[in-house]
């Protein structure tokens, strides 16, 4: 039965109209060209895949976000991609099998079952870049710099970088011997930096008092550069890997400060965005007027193991539709100038039109009996015959 409001789209699904599409495509082309200049090669993962492949190494959240369908050929469950990162990791691990660092980038629409809590969209256009095969902080630095370049290229000013490291919480909870239930309880509280609840929770845990103290202090370890020196004191009794994590953060921040002296950097050691997936450094970019991050990423080593090869990995992604909408507030990309041509069966005219189009000019040819003049169509010039020659003239 035909619905009454058949024009109405499902919630969180959108059509991109010409004005937006022009901006979106402009940014897409520019950003892919930027990624190419850094040696990141474009790949195009499939829209659907077997569900278990799509959900590899990810948490419950991605399973919930993935639209599912049954493959009528194999009887297996399929999913519509809700995040392209694991798909790209699969390409690196299974198809390319290179021993050296591999740089890949991608752009495409993904679908989410539940709308973003703030943007409400269920069909973001994910754009991102991933670097496989290097475990050191230098590769993290490279992808962070590329992310910042990407944001600069979309015209976004006043970008603020936030750095964290999920290995710190992971090591502390291991050191404290938390059960997986306790770990996820604590995770929920840390995500909200709910200090009163944290104290309540901790009071009920029978764990080493040193560990307890360190976990309690984690929520306070956020802010400027002094965060790391504070952390070194507070986390002095932590596992060696925590010290390494702090040293890595320090070093990355120093490198970034040298390369981009005006970039504001903050640290948040209780930031657990993508905790189930990430294994090391995590980072995010913020801009004023947007209540949450506009691009995010981090290290996620060994996700490819299940596809046959375990590789270190780091990368970032963003919603290109969001970036495009934000940058549109800063600058407007006008429509191309168009030339209006009359409809005539005249070889000279056809030849002239072909010539103009070959020069990347836009020519719109009139259709017999159509309504709308050159001006109404938004054309700025018109093809006219002067002395048996077809010439371009400005619209009167």
């Amino acid at each position, binding site marked *: 039965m035909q619905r009454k409001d058949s024009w109405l789209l499902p919630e969180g699904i959108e059509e991109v109209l010409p004005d937006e599409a022009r901006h979106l495509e402009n940014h897409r082309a520019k950003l892919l060209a930027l990624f190419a200049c850094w040696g990141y090669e474009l790949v195009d993962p499939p829209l659907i895949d077997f569900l278990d492949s799509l959900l590899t190494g990810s948490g419950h959240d991605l399973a919930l976000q993935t639209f599912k369908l049954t493959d009528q050929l194999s009887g297996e469950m399929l999913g519509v991609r809700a995040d392209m990162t694991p798909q790209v990791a699969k390409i690196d691990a299974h198809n390319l099998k290179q021993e050296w660092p591999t740089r890949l980038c991608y752009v495409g629409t993904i679908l989410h079952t539940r709308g973003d*809590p*703030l943007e409400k969209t269920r069909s973001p256009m994910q754009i991102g870049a991933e670097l496989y095969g290097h475990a050191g902080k230098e590769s993290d630095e490279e992808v962070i710099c590329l992310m910042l370049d990407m944001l600069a290229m979309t015209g976004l000013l006043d970008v*603020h970088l*936030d750095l964290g490291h999920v290995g710190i919480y992971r090591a502390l909870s291991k050191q404290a011997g938390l059960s997986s239930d306790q770990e996820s309880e604590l995770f*929920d509280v840390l*995500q*909200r*930096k*709910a*200090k*009163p609840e944290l104290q309540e929770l901790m009071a009920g845990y029978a764990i080493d008092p040193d560990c307890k103290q360190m976990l309690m202090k984690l*929520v306070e370890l*956020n*802010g*400027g550069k002094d965060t790391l020196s504070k952390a070194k004191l507070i986390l002095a009794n932590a596992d060696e890997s925590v010290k390494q994590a702090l040293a890595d953060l320090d070093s990355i921040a120093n490198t970034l400060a040298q390369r981009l002296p005006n970039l*504001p950097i*903050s640290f*948040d050691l209780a930031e657990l965005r993508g905790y189930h997936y990430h294994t090391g450094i995590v980072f995010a970019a*913020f801009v*004023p*007027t*947007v*209540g*949450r*991050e506009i691009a995010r990423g981090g290290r996620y080593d060994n996700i490819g193991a299940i596809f046959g090869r375990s590789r270190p990995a780091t990368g970032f992604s963003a919603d290109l539709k969001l970036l495009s909408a934000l940058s549109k507030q800063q600058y407007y990309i006008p429509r191309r100038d168009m030339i209006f041509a009359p409809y005539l069966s005249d070889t000279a005219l056809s030849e002239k039109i072909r010539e103009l189009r070959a020069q990347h000019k836009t020519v719109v040819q009139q259709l017999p009996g159509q309504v709308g003049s050159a001006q109404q169509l938004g054309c700025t010039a018109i093809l006219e015959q002067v002395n048996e020659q077809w010439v371009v003239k400005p619209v009167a």
Partner: protein
Amino acid sequence: MLTIAVSKGRIYEEALPLLAEVGIEPIDDPKTCRKLILRTTRDDVQLVIIRATDVPTFVEYGAADLGIAGKDVLLEHGAESLYEPLDLNIARCRLMTAAHKNAPPPYGRIRVATKYVKIAQKYFASQGIQAEIIKLYGSMELAPLVGLADCIVDLVDTGNTLRANDLEPREHIMDISSRLVVNKAAMKMKNQAIASLLDQLEKNIAQKN
């Protein structure tokens, strides 16, 4: 500039002394003036006066950097996209179930009238009770009297309204107080201003308890 979202009424009244202690006093009085944005004695701080249930929404989107909201509102809204670092210990009350004083204890599938749909669902599930939730926006106490529901879930302060309607409090679900909530991006981008405000407030609150 820091924008703090506060709801009118009890939370506003009880938050004012706390804010005054850190030098934030509204210049305009929301009772007499219809302005929704209130200037304060601190040039870098303004208050926005909104409905209690809208506070998490404003703060989530970054329309306000900070907000003061009851734990009941935060739980019902789902506040994963906010930070809630501080219990302000104001507007304290209890979230309880209540039923007619002669009503038998819940048995089988029960009907519950409340404005806290999510909290009630979660609570009864944790008690192993199948509950059908009826969403109401006010006058919860009426529901058991007219046979709309077997019991209600609501905030209880003095219990006078319950008694006046022949109801009695039954199970204590949780204690409620107001929390200071912070927008995630603001916490990062305006860290210094927010961290020092949090610090001062926390010290003052600790002294009172």
